[in-house]
Each structure stands twice: as C-alpha cells, then as structure tokens.
C-alpha cells in the first residue's frame, strides 16, 4: 500500500511542477495588476524552445532557450497590454492563440511535417541524500532539478514581493495604480517587469514539461495548463507560499485520474476525469472565497495612470 501512495505522490509532484512554475510567474504578474492569459502561449513557446535548445545543446541549453522564448512572448504581451494599454483579457487570449499557431509552424518547419516523436535529453530524477529514503515523503526528494527549483522559488518570490522595494512598488501598482503613480512609482515599468518575470517562469514551466516530464515535444502539449495555473493563483490567494500547496493540490487531483483508472477499473472513467474539476469548484467555493485579488487587477494601465 505504501508503494502505491509513494508512486501516486511522485506522480502528483511531477504533474504539479509545470503548474507551480507557471502559477508562481502569474502570481507576480497579477500582483502588479496584470492578468496574463498569454502564459499558456508563453509556456508552449517555452516547451518548443526547450525542445530545440535541448536537441542542440543538452538540457541546460533547453532551459535557457525556454526562458528566452517565454520572455519574447511576455515582451509581446506587455507591449500590447501594458505599454499600449490594451484590454488584458483580449491581448492575453490573442497571445496564446498566436503561440499555438506559431509553435506548430516552427516545429513542423524545424523537424518536418510528419511528426517525429523527438527523444530529448532530460533532467533525470536527482535524489537528495537522506531525505529521499524517508517513508512516504521520500518521492518528494527524488525529482528533477526543475522541481526543486520550483519549490525554492516559492519562498524566494514571497521575499521578492513582500521584502524588497521592487516588490512594494509592484504591489502598489497592482492595488492602487493611480496613487502609486502620484507617489512616483513608474507603474508601466514595474508592471512590464512583473509580466516579463512571469512569462520567463511560464517558459521555464514549458521546459519542465519537456525536460523534466515527457522528454519530447508535441503541438499544443501544454493542453490548458496555463489556464489551470491562473486558477491556482486565485486558489493560492495571490501569495507564492499558498500557491505552492494549491499547485500540489491540482497536481494530485490530476495524477489521481490516471492512478484511479489504472488501479480501480470498477469506477467509470468519466467520473474519474471529472474529479479534478469538481475538487476545484469545491475548494474555490470554500477556501478561496476569503482571498482578495489585487484591487487594480485587469485594469488598463491608462486608466490607473490617469493619462
């Protein structure tokens, strides 16, 4: 029984990693008042960047290329939604749709139209001595390096948001953009920086999907994970330290679908496939009702800056 539980936990952590990275990135962007639906696209661009980078120069080159790809997509979104002050929801949706098309075109151009089933060099699971031998919790310490990075990023981002001057200015831009501007905060600049940091992490999320989980690329492989990450941000109350367990919760719910189908064939699979979404609704109606979004979330830069 214990092996079943540890296997399930290992799967949950593996599934949660890209969600966590993307959700942490989105937390930063949203703390600055920008809701970026383009992270699904940034993640997909990161996944393709990771594939091309890793096949050329190994997994670390893949990580670097993924972050660059995420930044490029983030810069494009920031240009439209923050600098030009366009409607964020529409700009983000367009960014994601554009990325779905563009990654497909680049992939087919790069590897041929037929589909190749790439096998890429990946990050192997690295055991942390001592901890990895723990009962039950052991599998948490036998993960790819990107998973550890994601876990460490949560407290690091909390510190960045609540213990640095930059974090204060970003949160001010997200809570009360107009007042922040009158007190000399360059609202557009800090918002752009928040979006860029978030998109870089979305690119890293794509890299973790490719290099830490599946070892291959396929078109549309993010399959809505960016949008799930946005839900995780709300569930985590826009706080990196609470986003971490929220992402693990989602990872566990998603992993449970496959464990249940494989191990308990008596349960109809349709019921199992609804589970993560039922759990989400349940949790959102209870716990997340208490969380409060940044007050200026989604409002155009122009309207908060008064120009």
């Amino acid at each position, binding site marked *: 029984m214990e092996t079943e539980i540890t296997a399930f936990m290992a799967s949950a952590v593996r599934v949660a990693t890209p969600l966590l990275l993307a959700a942490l990135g989105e937390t930063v962007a949203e703390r600055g008042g920008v809701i970026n639906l383009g992270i699904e696209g940034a993640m997909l661009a990161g996944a393709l960047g990771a594939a091309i980078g890793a096949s050329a120069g190994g997994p670390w080159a893949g990580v670097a290329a993924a972050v660059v790809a995420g930044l490029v997509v983030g810069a494009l979104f920031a240009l439209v939604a923050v600098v030009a002050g366009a409607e964020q929801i529409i700009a983000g949706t367009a960014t994601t749709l554009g990325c779905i098309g563009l990654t497909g075109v680049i992939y087919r151009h790069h590897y041929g139209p037929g589909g190749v*089933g790439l096998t890429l060099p990946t990050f192997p699971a690295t055991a942390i001595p001592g901890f990895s031998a723990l009962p039950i919790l052991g599998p948490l310490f036998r993960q790819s390096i990107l998973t550890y990075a994601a876990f460490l990023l949560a407290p690091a981002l909390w510190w960045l948001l609540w213990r640095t001057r930059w974090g204060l200015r970003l949160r001010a831009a997200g809570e009360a953009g107009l007042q922040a501007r009158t007190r000399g905060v360059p609202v557009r600049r800090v918002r752009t920086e928040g979006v860029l940091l978030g998109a870089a992490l979305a690119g890293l999320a794509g890299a973790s999907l490719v290099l830490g989980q599946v070892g291959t690329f396929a078109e549309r492989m993010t399959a809505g994970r960016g949008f799930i990450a946005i839900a995780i941000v709300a569930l985590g109350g826009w706080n990196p330290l609470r986003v971490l367990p929220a992402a693990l919760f989602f990872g566990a719910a998603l992993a449970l679908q496959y464990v249940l189908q494989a191990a308990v064939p008596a349960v109809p699979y349709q019921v199992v496939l609804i589970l993560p979404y039922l759990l989400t609704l349940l949790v959102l109606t209870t716990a997340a009702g208490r969380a409060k979004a940044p007050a200026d979330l989604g409002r155009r830069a122009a309207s908060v800056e008064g120009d």
Partner: protein
Amino acid sequence: MTPGSIADAAWNSGAFQGLELIQDSLQVQISHVEARTPGEQEEALRAYARQGYALIFGHGFEFQGAAERVSAEFPLAIFIITSGEQLRGNVAPMIFRLGEATYLAGLVAGGVTRSNVIGFVGGIELPPIREAADAWFAGARASNPRVTTRSTYLNTFDDVAAGREAAVALLRAGADILTHNADQAALGLFQAVKEAPSVYVFGANLDQTDLAPERVLGSAVIDLPRAFLAVAREVQSGTFTPHVESFGLASGVVRYEPNPALLHLLSSDIQARVSAARDSIIANDRAP
C-alpha cells in the same frame, strides 16, 4: 480535414501522407486544414465544398454529423468520412476494421506478458477506438486466459504528459504490455515505456516501431495513403459511386506489422497462432 495535428506520427500523419500521395500520383490540387471543434469542422467542410473541391475527406468519426448537414447543399461534392458511421447521399464512410489487426497484436501480448496484466491508453472513447481496444483484449485472452486487462482514457489526443502519466500508472498497477489509440498523446506513453525495464508496447494506426525500436512489439497499421488513393482514383475517373467502403486484413489496408527485431520474444506457438488467426481472418474477411 484532420481533427488534430498532422505531426502526431499516427492517425493524422497518415491522412496527410495519403493526401500527398494523391497529389503526386494524380496531379491534382490538394489542401489540408486542422478542424478540432464541431463548429470548425462544419465550417471547414462547407468552405471546401464551396471552393469546388471534388473529394473531401473528413478524417474521423467526429466529422459524420457535420458532413451530413453540409452535404445536401453541395450534391456534386463527395464527402468521405474515415471511420464513419453510415452512408447518407454523397457522404460515404470509409471503415477500417483495425480490430482485426489489434486482435493479432493481442495474441502476441497474451503470449509475451509475464505479469498477466496488460493496459490500453485511449484518447477519447470513440466507437472505433473502443472496438479496436476490445479486439486487442480479446486476442490477449484467447492466447492467455489468465490475462487481466486495464484501460485508461485521457479525454484528449494532445496532452503528451497525460499520456505519460497514464502509462506510468498502468505500469505501476502491474501492466507489462501496453497499447494505445491516443495519437499525439501516445508519444508520452512511448517515453514512459522506454524508461521502464522490460515492458513492451504496440503502435497504433501507423508503423510506430521507430518511436522505440527496442520496445515496440508490432503495430496495428491502417495504410491510409493506399485507401485514400484508391478512392481518389475512382473519383477522378468518374467511376465512384457512394458506398460503404470497409477495409480489413484481407484488403491489405489494415495490417499487423510485427517488429522483426523483437520476434525472438515470441514462442513458436504464439507465432503459429498469429499466422493461423491472420489466415482465418483473411479467409472469412472478418475477425473471429
């Protein structure tokens, strides 16, 4: 028109190869679009018909309803629905009895498994996918009555990571032989199999041996290019009349392609059963 990416190394790749073969062999103009949702599918069918394409392939069961709605407005066009349900005017189904090939793969699976647990990963539970999976299970039970079967559906054909996690969970549950019908999502399944010691897998729709040459026992193949070209030839020469076209092992369009490098894993008894079953299916033109 395909319901997914033509870079899936499976169902949709095969259709695109068919389209290219038609272009090269018959010197005709071709076009392809990816249409995923029912709304897109109907609009894409209508657009092609309006542009005067003589032969339109809706590549999958999902196109049947949309083609029936559109076809009445365009009586001169011919709509072929692969894995379609029924003949309706100028909408003709092309049925592939993939189960005849997966039955043979099942015989092999039953003979090779040591844990006596085998697992299937499906994309979405469409009737043709269900039938091919059931035939695989039936084949395995025929050669090994102690076999336990497990199946998992992903509710997506795209999500490679879901394919991988589903495969990992099946392997954890004791399966040592897997097969799939999940198109692109199955790429993750092949990765999971490659990472686990001494487990094997079957390819679906295309010969997928190349995806894991040391682990793919064989593939249940639909030779889509051959089937597409045959229909296109008839349409070009004006001899096509809408009818239910059904391909099994006897036609040569549906085949079981073993991986020659792994034939040593099969006992001579199993090899004999596979060829006897193949002969019997071809002779009767239907699965046992």
